[in-house]
């Protein structure tokens, strides 16, 4: 620490590192503008831009039906990314790469348990939530108590869960979605809005309250910002990490449960896509991969951005190969832009 403890627009100054020249006219206005241009505000701006781009490329993209459809698809990513947000916020290179495998297991279990019967839906929900939490908590124990790096721990867990899924299904997933689950996801609920969106909105409100208005939220930001200082402030860091990773597993399982209602049938790697996309949604939403800074509101926007991107690429009727290449490039561009944005801000 220098004797001058001042945060400056050019960030922490390290000897020998060239700083970008600053605009000498940068004044109060710029400061105010910077405060307004939070990463999550930018992500929402991006949502609007992408919707407009979609409309220009394929008229009808902005119709209510289309918009609701995009949001419905985004909701699964948003639910997985909710847990991912908590894990990334908790710092210590926090990341959960097992969400895809847990989501797949939950989906397979849901179909298997309900066998298309509505009466068994709640039982299935209770079981998959418990299993999801337990698997996530094992991640948490590995990270917090055995000090295994989160990347290694959750990647390993991903493999283990895939094995468990195989064991559970004997290689052939059976069963199908209960009609009520399918209805929840597809048919309109309140004012024409699908039930899944109501659930997602509820989750978003809960997450925002949890992060912004509870002691748990404050402590989560604290352990992400400085784990040592958090422990010295009396926070029980390790049990908290177990709960956080457990919650991530539980939310991944919930996403798997609901996803069965969308697909109606299941396959073994149904959630595999969601691993990296959930991390990307968190980052696009402005949460720092270093932990300690970010919000779920941002992640919601990040999830919509990623879904929109795919949706627009689909409407372009490109080949699958071209679509994947463009998707990857745009993602890299986005993340790079965010990296720059943060460097300028600090």
């Amino acid at each position, binding site marked *: *620490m220098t004797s*001058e403890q001042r945060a400056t627009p050019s960030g922490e100054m390290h000897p020998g590192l060239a700083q970008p020249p600053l605009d000498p006219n940068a004044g109060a206005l710029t400061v105010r503008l910077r405060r307004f241009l939070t990463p999550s505000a930018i992500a929402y701006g991006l949502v609007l831009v992408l919707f407009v781009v979609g409309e220009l490329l394929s008229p009808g993209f902005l119709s209510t039906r289309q918009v609701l459809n995009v949001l419905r698809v985004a909701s699964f990513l948003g639910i997985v990314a909710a847990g991912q947000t908590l894990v990334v916020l908790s710092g210590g290179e926090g990341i959960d790469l097992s969400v895809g495998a847990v989501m797949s297991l939950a989906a397979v279990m849901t179909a298997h348990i309900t066998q298309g019967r509505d009466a068994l839906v709640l039982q299935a929900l209770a079981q998959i939530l418990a299993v999801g939490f337990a698997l996530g908590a094992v991640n948490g124990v590995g990270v917090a108590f055995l000090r295994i790096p989160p990347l290694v721990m959750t990647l390993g867990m991903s493999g283990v869960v895939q094995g468990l899924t195989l064991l559970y299904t004997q290689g052939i997933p059976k069963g199908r979605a209960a009609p009520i689950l399918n209805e929840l996801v597809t048919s309109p609920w309140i004012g024409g809005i699908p039930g899944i969106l109501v659930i997602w909105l509820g989750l978003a409100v809960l997450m925002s309250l949890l992060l912004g208005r509870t002691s748990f939220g404050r402590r989560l930001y604290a352990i992400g910002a400085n784990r040592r*200082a958090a422990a010295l402030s009396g926070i*029980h860091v390790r049990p908290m990490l177990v709960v956080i990773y457990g919650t991530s597993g539980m939310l991944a399982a919930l996403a798997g449960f609901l996803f069965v209602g969308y697909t109606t049938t299941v396959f073994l790697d149904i959630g595999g896509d969601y691993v990296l996309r959930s991390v990307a949604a968190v980052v696009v939403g402005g949460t720092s991969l270093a932990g*300690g800074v970010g919000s779920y509101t941002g992640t919601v926007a990040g999830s919509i951005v990623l879904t929109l991107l795919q949706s627009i690429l689909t409407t372009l009727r490109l080949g699958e190969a071209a679509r994947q290449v463009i998707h990857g490039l745009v993602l890299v561009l986005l993340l790079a832009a965010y990296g720059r944005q943060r460097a300028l801000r600090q």
Partner: protein
Amino acid sequence: MGGNAVPLLEAVGIRKRFGGVVALDGASLQCQAGEVHALLGANGSGKSTLAKVVTGVVAPDAGEVRIRGRVEKISGPADMDRLRIAAVYQELSLIPQLTVAENVLLNREPTRAGFIHREALWQRAAEVLHRLEQYLDRRLPLHEPVGQLSPADQQLVEIAKALSRDPEILILDEATASLRRHEVDALNQVVRELSAAGTGILFISHRLGEVYELCQRATILRNGRVVGTVDLAETPERDLLRLMTGEDLVLERRGRSRPMSRPVRLRVEGLRVAGCLDEISLEARAGEVVGLGGLQGQGQSDLLRALFGDLPHAAGRVEIDGKPVRLGQPADAIRHGMVLVPGNRGQEGLFMIRSVLENITLPSLAHRSWAGWLSLQRERNAARHMLNRLQVKVGSLDDSVATLSGGNQQKVVVGKWLLTEPKILLLDDPTKGVDVQARNELYRVVEDLRDAGLVVILNSSDDSELLALSDRILVLYEGRVVDELRGERLTEQELVGASLRLGSSDRKEGMSHA
């Protein structure tokens, strides 16, 4: 050092604004060849920014830097090498995974056929290190990764790295903060050699004792402006402090020596911690300030950490208000009303990227919440109330705590604990890197708490501060309490004597206030 000669280094009319904060407002300074020039000022006065303008880390909004009379644009390490400027900062720029030798010659490794010539590297690094080691009683481990070294040794490596560039202008920005006394002496010797050879040295330090020992002239900054350049030989410390702060500050004796009749709050018996503490016993009564003295690093910090539950106890018994307590982790100590202001506030006390509000309310959230649910209004009121009480000026509660000066940051750390209404306050070098004015305010806080019946256990690297604040001082040596000073024995002389009694010459000298 002829006053008429072209100055080696000259900064003229430097202005710098960071966002809405004016860090430098037309600051100027001159340093002649062979001069050791001090740059003084309270925290936030702009002295580090000025040093960083000279090294090109910060680009000024206006003004110019002249080297040997020529206006130079300095914008990076390449310019520094060209102009033979080197700098040592308090925050280290070393790479922990690389060895001492590799760090010293980083990016200037001798090569053979395009590959690093390791023997030559070791030899050159050893030569540079020898310039410091000749004044120390030991050698730095050339092949050890820097991350394994103590903070003091890392600082020495950082200094060696600067020396290896054969600078004509050397900037030492709080380079002595983590050094022990004999290491500071060694650095002083090297600085004298350099200045005799014509190098100009810009010396930034909070320790006025070192400044008087080493420097000839001083430029004093206040709020980004130069308030004077003085000849140190003709300027008493009191005048210097007045220039720095704009007011008179005297460190008078604040401790009380009258016998205590209050109940014993904290009793420690036979406390042992593997590797650092042995058979520590002590008693502290309500309303008492107990100082921990001795040479630096004799277990004072470890004792505070052990009491806070941050180090595992191998043996011993701790009682608070007559009841035995188990201290397995900090949360245990906090529950019993015993809290620690750690020695390294940046790494252990604060969440730099979070707001002042969150920092100050974190440990006491449970006091104001219902089943984990926070009332934001009550949070803000509690924070505002505490900041007022500690005289911390903040723009907004939502500003990140990193925007505060060192003194105000330390007050936030103290404040976050006061909100938990503690009974015992453990202070580990609380005024390190804190400017004079904020220091005085912190002393006042300690007095108030003592008067309110708290126990304060204080470790300080500043002996005069320890003597002024403590009702009595326990002197530690190699993890044991070897003496207790009270009454008339609370003098600098007695403290020095007691610290050295086991025949070591490794004494840490505090800065002496007027």
